[in-house]
């Protein structure tokens, strides 16, 4: 996959939020074989010394993708991206601008505004977006390096609520489409890839599974399986059966008449 002007061998991007410990995070990161991982920025709390995930990510040689999680306005998101650039020495940003805390749906007006500003400021912008084909096109047209539509709300684990929208986004996009949010289990990730997404971003489905490392393996394999299935070209869905064995040369072994089953129309 080519993303942000660089080739990547993994099509699974991992979020680091929601893990019960850094040990579980490490196990899942290794099992996922992800190359790109997201982190957030929050206030330092000197009274609580919780370990930073950054040491782990650096030790594993992974690529840090900071996010703007928690931002509600373009202004906050742009500032957060600029802070992230200073903190991590990267121009890459996973842009999130949220509309409300109940749905965590993106605010499309603020999102597009922030994307435009950040592209102009030299960022590689990966926007978390609604599954809206028109908004996806607008984000692409202002110069985003990818579009990242949600399958269903963050943490909802419902998979892809509206596969038609994902299909429409894929159909028009000339930048990578990364399904971000909503994955609940491996089959959801496979479905995203079968629909033509270029990659999947997954956090909660792995972090909150009973066995995160095992779920990371499952989702990695599902991403690969879905990608191969998409490239293989699936058969159409049909109402009627299509015999897989030829009927030519079939022996006559029954009675003279009525050997082709019940005539449904006249029964």
């Amino acid at each position, binding site marked *: 996959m080519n993303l942000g002007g660089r080739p990547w061998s993994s099509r699974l991007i991992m979020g680091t939020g929601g893990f019960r410990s850094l040990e579980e995070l490490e196990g899942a990161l290794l099992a996922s074989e992800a190359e790109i991982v997201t982190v957030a*920025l929050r206030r330092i709390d000197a009274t609580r010394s919780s370990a930073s995930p950054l040491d782990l990510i650096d030790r594993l040689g992974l690529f840090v993708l900071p996010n703007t999680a928690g931002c509600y306005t373009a202004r906050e998101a742009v500032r957060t991206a600029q802070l992230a650039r200073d903190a991590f020495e990267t121009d890459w940003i996973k842009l999130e601008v949220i509309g409300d805390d109940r749905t965590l749906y993106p605010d499309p007006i603020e999102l597009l505004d922030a994307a435009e500003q950040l592209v102009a400021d030299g960022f590689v912008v990966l926007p978390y977006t609604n599954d809206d084909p028109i908004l996806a096109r607008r984000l692409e047209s202002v110069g985003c390096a990818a579009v990242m539509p949600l399958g269903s709300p*963050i943490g909802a684990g419902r998979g892809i609520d509206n596969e038609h929208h994902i299909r429409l986004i894929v159909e028009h996009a000339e930048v990578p489409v990364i399904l971000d949010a909503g994955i609940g289990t491996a089959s959801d990730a496979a479905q995203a890839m079968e629909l033509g997404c270029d990659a999947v971003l997954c956090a909660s489905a792995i972090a909150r599974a009973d066995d995160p490392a095992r779920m990371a393996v499952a989702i990695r394999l599902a991403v690969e399986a879905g990608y191969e299935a998409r490239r293989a070209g699936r058969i159409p869905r049909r109402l009627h059966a299509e015999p897989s064995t030829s009927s030519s040369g079939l022996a006559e072994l029954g009675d003279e008449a009525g050997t082709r089953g019940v005539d449904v129309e006249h029964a």
Partner: protein
Amino acid sequence: MTVRINGEERELDGATSVADVVQSLAGQAERGVAVALDGDVVPRSDWESTMLRDGARLEVLRAVQGG
């Protein structure tokens, strides 16, 4: 002078730079730490030379696990 650091009022005696505050919160200024003063980013290269004024609002952030 009184400043706000990560949302909490603090009394400071004498000249204090952004670097001093970062040092007190994060120890050696490591990768993954960023600072905003009155809403604007203070690049790492300016931490030493940027002095806090009375009423300054400072945000000192670091990497955490996230989506």
